[in-house]
């Protein structure tokens, strides 16, 4: 009898990287063919640029640049006033300052919340989907319970209990949004697990963790990228809503807070203090929605390929 020795067939790291890069290039080219996505990307780049360059674009307020500056000599100035191109608030805050630093606040909010929720969702969803059985059953019932409370109301209640502050808004949003990812990732993993190449890996004798890391996870990731992109916008929308209701610190350079502050002046015809910051929330969410949709069309061939 002759022992058949099967040499371990593994693609080298270099060629694997090359394959990934080529795939990335293909996706990028196809995504950029959609004009709406390009517009969205452009707005996102502008917003992030504004957030990063905030200390250059404006003179940072001291000691805390995230607090609105107050100029008691310039209350309720209309847009176009020298020094205040977008006007001032009833506390003498420069609306342009709020718009610019608000983008920084929003970027921080969305990055932290999306980062945290994707991580938690990835861990919980992977455990449920990959282990299955009792673990899956229990985790998914917990997810169901979390999903049975409308998200804004849930976040509102958590933030209310924790007390009004921007940090608590971040915390509340993280508690509410991880479930979406857990469920998405679980479904995706169960779907991928049924593929032949996973069976093949098992037959060669790969360990469960290595199958998960090499075969299952990379093939489950695209819907998560799409969802995370959409949520970068959605979370700013919900966060600004909580701030608008009054759950941030007063005077924070945040778009929702500014809209709320400006609200009292509209009956007197002072439209600018609410309009500009609110438009920023809209633009931010719109841009990420456009890009998220564009990504979905390319990455997820099951939807809208007609």
């Amino acid at each position, binding site marked *: 009898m002759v022992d058949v020795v099967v040499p371990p067939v593994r693609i080298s790291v270099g060629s694997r990287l090359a394959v990934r890069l080529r795939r990335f290039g293909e996706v990028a080219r196809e995504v950029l063919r959609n004009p709406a996505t390009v517009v969205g990307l452009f707005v996102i780049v502008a917003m992030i640029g504004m957030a990063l360059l905030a200390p250059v674009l404006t003179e940072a307020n001291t000691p805390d640049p995230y607090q609105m500056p107050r100029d008691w000599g310039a209350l309720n100035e209309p847009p176009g006033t020298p020094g205040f191109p977008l006007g001032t608030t009833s506390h003498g805050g420069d609306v342009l300052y709020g718009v610019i630093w608000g983008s920084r606040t929003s970027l921080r909010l969305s990055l932290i919340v999306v980062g945290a929720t994707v991580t938690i969702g990835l861990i919980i969803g992977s455990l449920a989907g990959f282990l299955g059985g009792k673990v899956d059953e229990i985790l998914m019932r917990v997810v*169901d319970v979390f999903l049975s409370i409308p998200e804004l109301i849930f976040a509102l209640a958590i933030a209310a*209990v924790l007390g009004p502050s921007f940090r608590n808004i971040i915390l509340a949003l993280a508690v509410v949004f991880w479930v979406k990812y857990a469920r998405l990732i679980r479904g995706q993993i169960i779907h991928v697990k049924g593929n032949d190449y996973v069976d093949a890996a098992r037959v060669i004798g790969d360990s469960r963790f290595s199958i998960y890391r090499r075969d299952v996870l990379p093939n489950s990731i695209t819907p998560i990228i799409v969802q995370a992109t959409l949520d970068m916008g959605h979370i700013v929308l919900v966060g600004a809503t909580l701030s608008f209701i009054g759950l941030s610190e007063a005077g924070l350079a945040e778009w929702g807070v500014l809209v709320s502050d400006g609200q009292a002046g509209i009956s007197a*015809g002072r439209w600018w203090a609410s*309009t500009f910051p609110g438009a920023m929330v809209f633009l931010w969410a719109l841009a990420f929605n456009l890009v998220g949709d564009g990504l979905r069309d390319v990455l997820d061939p099951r939807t809208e390929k007609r």
Partner: protein
Amino acid sequence: MQIRDYVLRRLMILPLLVVGTSIIVFALTRIGGSPIGIYLSHEMTPAEVTELEERFHLDDPLPVQYFYWVSGVLRGDLGWSGVAAAPVTQVFPDKLGATMELAVAAGIVAVVLGIGLGTFAGARRNRLPDHLARVFSISGASMPVFWFAIVLLIVFWVYLGWFPTGRSDPNVFGRIAHPTGIYTLDAILAADFRAFLDALWHLTLPAITLGYGTTALIARMMRSSLVEELGEDYVDAARAKGLPERLVLRRHARRNALIPTVTVIGLSFGFLLQGTVVVEIIYRWPGLGRWMADAVLRGDQATIMAYVLFTSVLFLAVNLVVDVTYAYLDRRVVLGT
């Protein structure tokens, strides 16, 4: 799986979810420590504080406290609302009427406009109306309700003066009785046309504001499912037998396209419910949402708990109804699970 089994299974999970939700709600109120602070004053002696703690069972372990709370809720005791200065259960029906009137009006706007727009766009795929509808939809998904409300107020209340804020004109309000607390319905019951118009007039802006996001959602779903149906063979068959395009659309494609749209309509109920919080603040609408917002800002835990519990149970119930309806309409769902 039989459809009956599916419904039964869903019904069996429902109490589990309600209990789970109630645990979360209860846990929330204990995160900040004991709620004894609400009852304390500076003049109290330690003995009095202990007595208070005993009276409200706050010295018991948390699971026991939870048990006392749940049995209170089941007896209809939701505690004292500090904001409304009255028991929660006493204030609730009034506010509920106002919120339901708003949510239903917005829902009607959204369903009618959404299905209409979605059909219109889907039947003209990749032509100008379709592109415009897409812009409308994606804007709706990105629109901060609080900002949209303020922009509409600036235009239609401050500058044009076409629409009022609040819920009714005080003079008109006094003219008729309000047995239901739903003003449009009250006006119909009293057969008072002016009161009805006044109620509608106050309802218009808030309903449009609240309904926009949902309209966008429904339109989008309707459009894509109509496009999908129009590619099916039965549509070609209907066309081949000489049916006019209008009838192909109305009798065949649209009916089938409505099935997935039903799910979205159900989902959007939660969307409408949470939107009322912001819309009610801005339009001074005296409903549950504004009550909740006040409670949130003033730390009124009884009101917050009642509101979260109520909306979740309602949300669960609506979702159940929608899923079951959907299962009946499209049997593939049941076979798939």
